[in-house]
């Protein structure tokens, strides 16, 4: 990974903001301050236009027609796979489009889960999103396998002792998040992947929160599978990616059956299509796929390293100003070890009420358990407020967030 900054474009947040039409919106008469980027990111005009263009000019099903429109649609849809492949350093055949991270993780869990036996173990962590917990709970239950958890240390990072004790020769699958969507912790997944592979386990990465904001290279990480969502990286909803190593995908059975994923169907048996189509049954989300490709072009035009740097500055700033707000408790590691997520609580005020009051100031944050209820129980809370940043956010917006927290005190008379 090169640390030198790519001089693609000098990072000018004001000009970037102009690319996102929604940022012109006013909420309760105030300019929108969108700090809910971990839930979903806003879309630049180029992505919106690409999808309209598809419907306006070349809407057709893919892989099913020899007419001009179908040819154009197929080309654009396949090209999007190529763009994703290049973006994460995989190959075209290794990129499966799904509806999102959740479906990607379910796909692996069901397909790999078939081979689990009683006594086998699956290892995940205490900081997973529900989408990387529940599928494993279900397949483990069905197969009599055990689900084990890597614990979290005081500092909000994974506990190394726990990593070494939980991953053993019995472990068949290790699946964990690259970046926590609550604590922001950037996990040492490359090192954990090594431990997994030393024990002959399959290594799966939930990269929903990392791919939008840092260089993710599947070869460097040596991930067997890696999942992420288009909508968190400035692309549309309804599209996501499952990367899988070619040799594993070749041997793996499909998850969904139907059209497009077959080469030949006889009355009683079928032969599967080539990769990646073997795993994309039915008419796919064509315009979302195309939109995701354009979102990647957009990220590339700014430079992922520049995005990472900008968000790191925002995060450092947020940690600094929020720490100074009285009655606020911040969860997770120091600014150096986290990506652009800051979850916090206000003493004696529920996260939901904080979010309602911030909303009145035009500030959109998430409040709740962030689809990580087991993690909430580890932190001994039921909910938290979460501010998360993206390329178009500014330090001024974070200052507004901090200032608006004073209103919470006023309203609750604290």
């Amino acid at each position, binding site marked *: 990974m090169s640390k030198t900054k790519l001089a693609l474009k000098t990072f000018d947040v004001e000009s970037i903001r102009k690319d996102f039409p929604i940022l012109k919106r006013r909420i309760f008469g105030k300019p929108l301050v969108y700090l809910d980027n971990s839930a979903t990111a806003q879309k630049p005009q180029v992505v919106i236009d690409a999808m309209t263009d598809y419907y306006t000019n070349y809407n057709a099903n893919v892989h099913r027609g020899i007419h001009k429109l179908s040819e154009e649609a197929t080309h654009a849809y396949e090209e999007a796979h190529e763009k994703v492949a290049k973006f994460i350093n995989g190959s075209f055949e290794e990129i499966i489009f799904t509806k999102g991270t959740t479906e990607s993780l379910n796909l692996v869990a069901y397909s790999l889960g078939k081979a689990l036996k009683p006594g086998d173990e699956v290892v995940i962590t205490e900081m997973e999103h529900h989408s990387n917990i529940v599928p494993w709970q279900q397949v483990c239950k069905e197969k009599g396998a055990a689900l084990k958890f890597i614990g979290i240390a005081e500092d909000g990072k994974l506990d190394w002792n726990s990593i070494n004790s939980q991953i053993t020769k019995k472990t068949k699958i290790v699946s964990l998040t690259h970046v926590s969507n609550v604590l922001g912790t950037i996990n040492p997944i490359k090192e954990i992947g090594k431990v997994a592979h030393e024990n002959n386990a399959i290594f799966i990465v939930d990269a929903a929160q990392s791919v939008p904001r840092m260089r993710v290279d599947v070869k460097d990480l040596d991930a067997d599978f890696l999942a992420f969502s288009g909508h968190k990286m400035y692309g549309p909803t309804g599209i996501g990616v499952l990367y899988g190593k070619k040799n594993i995908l070749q041997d793996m059975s499909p998850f969904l059956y139907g059209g497009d994923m077959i080469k030949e169907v006889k009355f009683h048996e079928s032969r599967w299509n080539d990769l990646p189509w073997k795993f994309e049954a039915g008419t796919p989300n064509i315009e979302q796929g195309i939109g995701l490709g354009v979102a990647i072009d957009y990220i590339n035009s700014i430079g992922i390293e520049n995005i990472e740097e900008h968000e790191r500055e925002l995060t450092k700033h947020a940690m600094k100003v929020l720490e100074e707000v009285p009655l606020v408790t911040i969860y997770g590691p120091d600014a150096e070890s986290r990506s652009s997520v800051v979850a916090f609580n206000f003493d004696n005020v*529920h996260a939901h*009420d904080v979010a*309602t009051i911030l909303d*009145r100031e035009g500030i959109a944050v998430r409040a709740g358990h962030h689809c990580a*209820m087991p993690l909430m129980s580890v932190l001994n809370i*039921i*909910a938290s407020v979460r501010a998360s940043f993206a390329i178009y956010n500014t330090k001024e917006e974070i200052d507004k967030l901090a200032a608006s927290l004073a209103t919470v005190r006023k*309203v609750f008379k604290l």
Partner: protein
Amino acid sequence: MTEFKQPTVEEDVAGLDMIYREHILDHYKNPRNHGNIEHPDISFHDNNPLCGDEIKIEVKLDAQTHISDVKFTGRGCAISQCAASMLTEELKDKTLEEAKKITNQDIIGMLAIPISPVRMKCAILSLKVLEAGIYEYENKQKLQKVRITDS
């Protein structure tokens, strides 16, 4: 074509700062009937998956029909906790039949603040818990009757 229209400031602001009114904060900070009942007849707990609000309601009955005591515990936002506190006040000295007649709209009426669709779940959580608790209790009673008549 349904085109998005930016709401005017007036539309947005209408009924706005009316949420955290004095009585809401009062019930939130000094919840009534907060705590547990020993050997309750009805006890039910549920949570709101959206934001993690939790409510447990316990009820003591006289002669199986009359609410003699009710208490709640819980964690959550001002709206959910306040609604629970107000609901328990409302329940004192009611019969189960009367309690079953309380509606979502009654809760909104008690809160007397504008409730947005998202906050609706918070507002009615305690009523849902109560309803589920009564349902469970009545089913148990029915089963017992069946057992008694069987033997």
